[in-house]
């Protein structure tokens, strides 16, 4: 592979948005400050392009297609659903997934169900971009990993890329998907650079990524925890344990075959998720292993997740709260003794 340029995760998202808008006039962006205000006539000011700068520059390129909304999540997401059902292909930004509580209905009862309730006579090609996860001391209401709530809703798809490469390709796939897709941008990865191909490409939704091969244990992560799994694998290698690392990428649909394949290979699984432990992706993976994968299991399936608690503010507490390579290594050691 030829030497590629490196982009931050956010820059990769920005590039995907630009390509999607260039290739389809029905793609629009709407959200709070996605243009970024400050565009009054004759004033020497510049737009912010989102609270984290992810959409910077797009309003200049597509002046009529990047819409700042009021702080009205129910209104803006509901409007995006209605627009998607009537010909547009909107990319709505929910600034942080923690705000899901202000706009769940249009996703839960409208976007996810219109097609089914109407007997197949509707499509809702909506993408909701949102920021997830902890690690920036943003505290209890700006650090959650609530993708389990959307992943559990039939009719929605939910993806969480772990690299800038996948961020660009999965976002392009999400926007062009005819079903509603929740696209998660892990806070702790937003500025991490990685290789990103030029041009237009898609990463298929529903396919996990085998990050590294191994034979003794399978470390299954997603989003921000993939790096932790890789760190743990490095450490375990030093201890003579060969760990395979799988990046789920797509939380709904889940790539069951990839999970079962790595389980069959190693016989032992540790699932690592930033989210809280109850009713989450980690439980689904474990449940799959003990159902269809039962005959392959040589050890218990361990889940390394956040505790059943809100996200604390103080750095020491937030560190104690989050999964880490060390916690993964400890879980693997425990499985092998």
């Amino acid at each position: 592979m030829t030497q590629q340029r490196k982009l931050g995760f956010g820059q990769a998202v920005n590039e995907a948005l630009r390509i999607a808008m260039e290739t389809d006039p029905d793609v629009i962006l709407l959200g709070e400050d996605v243009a970024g205000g400050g565009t009054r006539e004759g004033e020497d000011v510049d737009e912010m392009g989102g609270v984290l700068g992810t959409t910077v520059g797009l309003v200049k390129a597509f002046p009529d297609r990047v819409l700042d909304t009021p702080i009205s999540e129910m209104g803006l997401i509901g409007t995006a659903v209605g627009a998607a059902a009537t010909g547009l292909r909107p990319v709505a930004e929910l600034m942080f997934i923690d705000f899901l509580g202000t706009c769940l209905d249009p996703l839960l009862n409208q976007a996810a169900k219109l097609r089914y309730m109407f007997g197949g006579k509707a499509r809702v090609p909506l993408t909701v971009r949102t920021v997830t996860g902890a690690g920036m001391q943003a505290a209890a209401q700006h650090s959650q990993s609530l993708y389990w709530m959307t992943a559990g809703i039939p009719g929605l798809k939910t993806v969480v890329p772990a690299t800038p490469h996948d961020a660009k390709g999965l976002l392009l796939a999400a926007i062009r998907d005819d079903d509603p897709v929740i696209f998660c941008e892990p806070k702790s990865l937003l500025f991490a650079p990685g290789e990103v191909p030029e041009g237009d490409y898609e990463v298929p939704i529903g396919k996990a990524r085998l990050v590294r091969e191994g034979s003794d244990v399978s470390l299954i992560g997603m989003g921000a925890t993939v790096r932790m799994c890789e760190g743990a694998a490095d450490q375990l290698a030093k201890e003579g344990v060969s760990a395979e690392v799988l990046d789920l990428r797509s939380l709904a649909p889940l790539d069951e075959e990839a999970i079962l394949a790595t389980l069959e290979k190693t016989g032992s699984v540790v699932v690592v998720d930033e989210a809280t432990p109850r009713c989450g992706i980690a439980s689904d993976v474990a449940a799959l292993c003990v159902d269809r994968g039962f005959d392959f299991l040589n050890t218990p399936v361990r889940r390394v997740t956040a505790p059943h608690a809100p996200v604390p503010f103080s750095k020491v507490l937030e560190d104690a709260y989050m999964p880490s390579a060390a916690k993964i290594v400890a879980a693997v050691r425990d499985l092998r003794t």
Partner: protein
Amino acid sequence: MQLTRPELLDAYRRMRMIRAFELKLAELVTAGKMGGFMHLYAGEEAVAVGVCRHLADTDFVASTHRGHGHCIAKGVDVAGMMAELFGRATGCNKGKGGSMHIADVDKGMLGANGIVGAGIPLATGAALSAKLRRTGGVAVAFFGDGASNQGAFHESLNMAANWKLPAVYVVENNGWGEFTPTDFVIPVKDIAVRASSYAMASAIADGMDFFDVSEKAAEAIGRARAGEGPTLLECKTYRFMGHFVGDPLKYRTKEEAERWMQQRDPLDGFEARVTEAGLVASADLRAIDRAVEEEIAAAVEAAEAAPLPDPSEVTTDVYVGGAA
């Protein structure tokens, strides 16, 4: 705004169709031939028909839990609706939606909605589509007085006013939200005043008078098409039957209901107006009544004879890509 004779007959036919359809459903549900939560529109016919007569299939409406009237006014096939309510494979939603989700997107009918207030942002989105895609279309949200207390109402109207969207927000103020009188939960007399929070145009129509609704809807829809922004149109009306089929109605007085039904029935009012003006003869209307009854009887017969969905349908239509 003078209506032609065909227009008058069509308006009456739709109002009569709604009334007859709803009475038939009450009968079928009470007889145990039909299931589900069923909210009937009888009494409010002039609102749906007075508004929708100004709309084309390319215009969208978002409806409520009380959606049959909006469907019929918007041109959804009555036989398909009846089959849907019988849960048949031939229903307009393949039997998957039922009364609270009855829809036909091809007719610009974005569905009844089981979530009070949820249709308001959907219509707002349809209006945004119309504006950005320059279809020349408009979107109408129908919703009740109770729905005007939902946050979705506030957020949507603010956005629509802000963006001058081609939308009309029609609040059907029937004086009740389930079993609670409107004045128990809304401290203002006219919901139309809420438009002032968004510098939005507003109007109040007599929802029992087809002509008044039609006229004020024409103005609002005209403004929307002309790019002059949205309107909040309040139609004062009354629900003749219970909140749902089976409602014992013990919370409101018989007198109140009878007053409305005897003095303000929109079909009677329409008939008096057009016959006195010599535009249509009662005999013409009776002929329509009979035709409507026959169409509904045929719809029931066809629906009862139609096949049920195959159980395998339970997991289809979840995703465009196919099964879950």
